[in-house]
């Protein structure tokens, strides 16, 4: 579903906030070649399992990265697919999660998401090589 459709009628984020997050997602996808999804909403008590199930329901889960933020439970989950994990390892996900966490503590949900997605996109950037592909 396009981001604009998701924002319509919800009213949780202002249009400018939605635009900021969408721009960060586009930049991250352009840099990394992966697919990024952001889910902000309520989860279950086991937020990790809930995020894993959401990730599995994506159209291309192997190449997708899901960022799930539950402001109610104060939980943040980053799920990277099997193929995305090759370029975006768990340590880089942990660094991005720490960056987002510091913004969430200050109450800046949108700013934390934007910074975290940008960080994930830069970390998953495919290294440039001078070798010619056959």
């Amino acid at each position, binding site marked *: 579903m396009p981001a604009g459709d998701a924002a319509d009628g919800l009213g949780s984020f202002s249009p400018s906030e939605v635009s900021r997050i969408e721009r960060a997602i586009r930049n991250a996808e352009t840099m990394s070649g992966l697919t990024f*999804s952001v889910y902000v909403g309520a989860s279950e008590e086991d937020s990790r*399992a809930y995020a*894993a199930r959401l990730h599995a329901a994506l159209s291309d889960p192997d190449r997708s990265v899901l960022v799930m933020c539950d402001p109610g*439970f104060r939980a943040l989950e980053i799920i990277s697919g099997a193929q*995305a994990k090759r370029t975006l390892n768990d340590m880089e996900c942990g660094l991005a999660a720490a960056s987002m966490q510091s913004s969430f503590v200050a109450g800046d949900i949108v700013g934390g998401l934007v910074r975290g997605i940008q960080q994930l996109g830069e970390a998953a950037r495919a290294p440039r090589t001078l070798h010619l592909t056959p």
Partner: protein
Amino acid sequence: MPLSGPVPLLDPVPLLDPVPLLDPVPLLDPVPLLDPVPLLDTDSPSVDVPEAGVRAGSANVGPVSELLSMLVPLETLAGRPEATNPTVLQSLGLLIGIPAVAFAIIALLCKASALAKAGRGRPTPVTDPVWLGSAPKDQELTDGTTAPGSGESHTGTGGASARW
């Protein structure tokens, strides 16, 4: 000689006769004080004695003259038209109005950055789930009606978790 019999006491002789006191003689006769001599003759046209609140070549000023003189020179140069006294409104504006405006501007500049950031850090109330980027095809996953996926998650996934 045996001491016998009472010895008659001598008549008391006055040691000193009371001398009549002399009339007090004034040490110095009171000299009549001289009439005060004016140091400066105010009537003389050659000497200009400034009076209180009056300066040479300037107009009379009121009780705020000393305070105003710290900020505004009250003397008028020779050949210039005589300076007029500032009104009470002008004095108030100079002494109170301008500092108040400067204080307000400085306070506004200090508060500007805080006002700009006022709405930025507020926690966003999230009432409904929001999907941004690519979302799952089945939107009922996160609308609260059904549990997502019912336990079928891909293996080999990575990532990180955090709580705040």
